[in-house]
C-alpha cells in the first residue's frame, strides 16, 4: 500500500492522519464472514427455537431478531464497506439519511395503523 494517488485505499484523505487504525486484512475479513455466518445461524434458530414460540415471548423474539439484523448490518457497513475506517464524510452521508429514513418511515408505518373509533 504505497500508492496513495488515487485515493482508493481505506483511510485515504482527511482521516489518513489517523494511521493508528488497523486496516482489515484478508484474515480479518474471513473472521468477519464466519461471524456473519454464526449470527445468521443464530437468527434462524431464534425464529424456530421452542422457547421463543409462545405468543407472550413474541416481543422478545422480535427484539432478538432485530438486534441480530442490526449487528449484521453494522458489521457489513463498518468492515466490508470500510465505513469504520474511511473518511468521516462518508459516515455522515450514509448514517444521517439512514437515521432520518428509519424515523420518518417508522412514523408512516405507525400512522397507517391508526383507525380511529372505526
Amino acid at each position, binding site marked *: 500500500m504505497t500508492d496513495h494517488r488515487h485515493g482508493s485505499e481505506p483511510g485515504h484523505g482527511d482521516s489518513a492522519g489517523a494511521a493508528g487504525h488497523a486496516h482489515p486484512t484478508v484474515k480479518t475479513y474471513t473472521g468477519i464472514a464466519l461471524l456473519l455466518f454464526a449470527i445468521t445461524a443464530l437468527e434462524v434458530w431464534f425464529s424456530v427455537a421452542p422457547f421463543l414460540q409462545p405468543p407472550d415471548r413474541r416481543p422478545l423474539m422480535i427484539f432478538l431478531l432485530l438486534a441480530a439484523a442490526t449487528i449484521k448490518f453494522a458489521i457489513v457497513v463498518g468492515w466490508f464497506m470500510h465505513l469504520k475506517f474511511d473518511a468521516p464524510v462518508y459516515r455522515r452521508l450514509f448514517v444521517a439519511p439512514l437515521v432520518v429514513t428509519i424515523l420518518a418511515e417508522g412514523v408512516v408505518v405507525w400512522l397507517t395503523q391508526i*383507525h*380511529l*373509533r*372505526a
Partner: protein
Amino acid sequence: MSNSPRPVRNVAAAVATSLLAALAGCMGDAPQSTLHKNSDLADMTWGVYMLVTWITLAVGVVVFALLAYVVFRFRDRGEEGIPEQVHGNTRLEIAWTLVPLALVVAMAIPTVRTIFAAAAPAPEGAVKIKAVGKQWWWEFEYPELGVTTANEVHIPAGVPVAFEIVSADVIHSLWLPQFGGKRDAVPGRTNHLTFTARDTGNFVGQCAEYCGDSHALMKLRLVVQEEADFQRWVQEQKAPAQGDLVASGKPGPKAFLEGGCIACHQVRGNPIAAGRIGPDLTHVASRGTIGSGILDNDAESMRRWLRDPEGVKPGSLMKLPHKLSEQEVETLTQYLLELK
C-alpha cells in the same frame, strides 16, 4: 359554547369579528363563509382562529413596518465610502429566535387543547348520521332512525349530532363551514364529526376534496330544525312512498319502471325499486334541491336534469339507457315531484 371567554379575548374577538366582517361585507353575502359559526365546535375553534389570526397579523405589521422603515431610511443618498460592516449580533439574533418561539408556544397550547377537545367521542343520545361521499353527491343515513336521504341533511338544534363520514369510491371531504370545518371521507376508513347546532335555518356545504369531474358540483344542504320539527321530518321520511309502481297503472310509475330508473334508485315501498347506486328517491320531492344542491327542486330543473344529466353535471354516473323523449321527461318529472 364550551368555555366562557375572558373579557380581553371577548374584546379582541369582537374587534376581529368586525374587521373580518367588514372585509366579508365587501363581497356581499357568502353563505359558506367560515366566519359564520353555528355550533359548539365552531365556537371552540373560533378562539384559536382569532388568536392565531391576531398574532400573525401583529407579526406581519411589525415586519412590514420594519421593512418600510429600513427601505426608506437607509436608501443610498450618495454618501461617500462604504457603510459600517456589521457581520451580526448574537444577542439580537438569539432575541429574534426566542420571540417567535414564544409566539409559537402561545399558539400551540390552545391549538393542542382544541384538537383534543374536538376529538372527544360523541355524547350519549347524539343523533347518529352516516354521511357517505359518492361521485358526486352525498348520501345521509340515520341508522337509528331508519331514514336515508341524499344531499340534504336535517338535524335538530341543541342536540348533539355525530357524523360518521365514509366514502364509497374516492376521497371526498364533508365541509359544513358554519359548524366547525371539514373532515375527509376516505374509502376504507371512518371519520367523525360531532357538534351541537345552535340556530335553526338552512345552511350550505360542499365537498372540499377534489374528487373528479364534477367536484365543483358536489354541494349539500344542512337544515337545522327545532327538535319537534325534526321529529316530524323523520316520521315523514320513514313512511314509504305513495303508490305502488306496478299496481298503480299510472304513466309516471310505469315510466320510472320501464325507463330503467329502478336499477339505481330506491323508492321505498316498492321492492323492485331497490337500487342503491343513485340517491334514494322515496321522498325526493321533499328536498329543496336536486343534483346535489345545484338546482332548485322544481319542474323546470327536473326536466333539465332528466333531459341531459351529463350536461348538468359533467361526468355524471347517471347513464340513461336511452335519450328520454319529451313525453317521458314530462311524465317522469310529474311523478318525481309527487314523491313528497
